[in-house]
């Protein structure tokens, strides 16, 4: 019999072989496995027993609408749903035409995405106080998951242009501009978000003329944008650094001036490189929006806190915060999964 015809030992293959190889050899691994198994069984038992028998989930089911839109008037809830619909339709179209590179439909989609911002803004905010069709819903009552999303999306979008300018400024050859941009970026990155929010909530109004009055939500947005733009700047700077030197030289060789070189040659490549990093930053910002609860806004976590104060549900912190955590987990996990896919697809770091 040829050596290759000898079947492998029985315990090396199949389920048993896998178990032996991955869990029970050498002996200390077996101990580790047993300890881990005991840990898993314990945790799962505790969680399941709580979730199935002792938890009072009606606090979540009754308040589900409150978690989603908070104090947004119930009669106007269709506007939130319509906004969500716009985003979903656009997302579906984008996904459907993802292969149609260079076709005019792509250009229209980009325009539609850009246009969706003011449209959704108007939809959510409404017109005048007594407009019969869409009465004004002041930003002060935006809350729940709606507010979380608004803060995160507006924050990342608004911080993007500022971040790009800051990144360019930090790489500038003009010392004054470089130093000022560096001070800004490093100061913001050196302090916690909550102190920037503090500044935008309490200090900003003092430094604006008395006739300008910003709503709390707007002030929080200013703080989030200022904070986020410093991080965007660093991401973009990384993308700029990854553009090969030859690209700059080639652009100069064909006679482009500095501005055109940046806009036509360098930035498109740099920004493509930073897309995964920006998605990661968006996930971080999405999580960080919970901090506005400290300055008194009712985003998802703030609503959770308010719900635990309801008379009939007092003391149900476990159920409420568990639910909030699960919602955040689903959103963030999907985003980081998407970011990983995107990274693979764009081949960042693989060149």
């Amino acid at each position, binding site marked *: 019999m040829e050596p290759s015809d000898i079947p492998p030992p029985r315990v090396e293959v199949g389920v048993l072989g896998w178990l032996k190889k*991955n*869990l029970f050899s050498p002996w200390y*691994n077996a101990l*580790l*496995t047993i300890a*881990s*198994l005991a*840990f*898993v069984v314990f945790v799962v038992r505790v969680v399941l027993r709580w979730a199935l028998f002792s938890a009072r989930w009606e606090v979540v089911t009754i308040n589900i609408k409150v978690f989603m839109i908070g104090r947004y008037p119930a009669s106007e809830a269709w506007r939130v749903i319509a906004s969500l619909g716009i985003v979903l339709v656009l997302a579906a179209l984008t996904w459907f035409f993802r292969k149609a590179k260079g076709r005019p439909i792509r250009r229209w989609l980009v325009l539609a995405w850009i246009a969706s911002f003011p449209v959704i803004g108007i939809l959510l905010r409404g017109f005048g106080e007594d407009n019969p069709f869409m009465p004004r819903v002041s930003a002060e009552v935006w809350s729940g998951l709606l507010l979380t999303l608004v803060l995160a999306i507006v924050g990342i979008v608004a911080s993007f242009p500022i971040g790009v300018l800051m990144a360019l400024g930090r790489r500038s*050859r*003009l*010392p*004054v*501009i470089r130093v*000022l941009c560096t001070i800004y970026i490093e*100061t913001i990155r*050196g*302090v*916690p*978000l*909550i*102190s920037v929010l*503090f*500044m935008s909530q*309490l*200090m900003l109004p*003092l*430094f*604006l*003329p*008395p006739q300008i009055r910003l709503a709390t939500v707007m002030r929080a947005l200013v703080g989030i944008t200022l904070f986020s733009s410093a991080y965007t700047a660093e991401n973009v700077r990384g993308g700029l650094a990854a553009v090969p030197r030859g690209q700059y030289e080639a652009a100069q060789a064909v006679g482009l001036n500095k501005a055109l070189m940046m806009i036509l040659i360098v930035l498109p490549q740099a920004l493509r490189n930073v897309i995964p990093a920006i998605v990661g930053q968006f*996930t971080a910002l999405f*999580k*960080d929006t*919970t*901090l506005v*609860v*400290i300055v008194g806004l009712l985003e998802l*976590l703030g609503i*959770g*806190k308010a719900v*635990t104060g309801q008379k009939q549900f007092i003391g149900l*912190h*476990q159920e409420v*915060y*568990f639910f*909030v*955590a699960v919602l*955040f*987990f689903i959103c*963030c*996990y999907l985003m*980081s999964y998407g970011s990983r896919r995107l990274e693979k697809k764009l081949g960042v770091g693989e060149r």
Partner: protein
Amino acid sequence: MKRTGSQTSRVPFWRDIRVLRWVAQFVFLMAVIALILWAISNYRQRGMIFSYSFLDKEASFDLAEGIEFEPTDSYARAFLVGVLNTIRVAVVGIIFATLLGLFTGISRLSGNWLLSKIATVYIEIIRNTPLLVQLFFLYFAVILKLPKLSTAVILPGPAYLSNRGIVAPWPRLAEAFRLWWPFLLLALGAAIVLIVIRRRSQARLGRPGIRAVWVFAAFVLIPLAGWFIVPGRPLWLDIPELIQKSGGVIKVEGGITLSSEFTALLLGLVIYTGAYIAEVVRAGLQSVAKGQTEAARAQGFTNGQIIRLIVLPQALRVIIPPLISQYLNLTKNSSLAIAIGFLDLYAVSQTMLNQSGRVVEVFFMIMGSYLAISLTISLIMNIVNKRMQIVER
């Protein structure tokens, strides 16, 4: 480069790139200054002043956490209490987060399928939920739901776990410590001398003359010898006791008390940052090429030597820079303490602000303190990093 007068004069100054650069910078600077002046003038118009004189005034509020503080103490001392509380939670948090991250990161790469899956699940859950939600859950849904002090969970030690936090035994200095500390100093000196000798011999002969065990022995045996030579015990263990006061009030005396806020914040920060550090550690270990381990094994290194001499020095170079930013994140994240009522630097500042109304002054103090703490951590870690980078050659 030499320029002749005629060349310079041919380019009019408004098209001279050198002039334009200075003009651009000047305009930019002026715009920034104008913005700042405009903001200051708005501030003045409200009749606000800028002065730190309030720092010497009586704070007239109480702080329940940290070094001793009376309501009659000054604002400056209140702020100090906050800063020290932040440093305390940050330092302890960094130590435990590093240990947890190291353990989890290695577990994730473990050949044991179950262990590595547990580590992955932990990392994914923690990294994909906001820290503040975790803190709320830990504080409101776990720690505050623990039994009352009278029915506290008694852990071996004994340590008492209740909704008022943890009370645990704690070593304290006794009278005899005066005689014992010279032994500690001696041990430290001996260990340093031995390490220097090892280094020298390594450089000269290519192998350490003294085995590493001896360094460790010197460090342990000398204090141990001192422990028995010195009359009396240099340290004593302060064991907490539940005491029934008159009127049925139950109190704990002795030991060290970690308040429920401190416990929740510390646990939250450690669990959160630990997950991030685990990923840093995993990436670092994976960055060491497999051929390095194989080559070392082929040369007859033992498993321990491979990790200590081949893998770690290379992995640490990759690990340390992102580790620094995780340490900084932990420190900055400790400002979330205010949401669960731990009196860190930010929470104390908020109280100071409510009492004194000095928004801008307090804000600059907050910014300055965080920047100072961040810079200190960066500085220390950069020194460590430099030393690691030398190993590279």
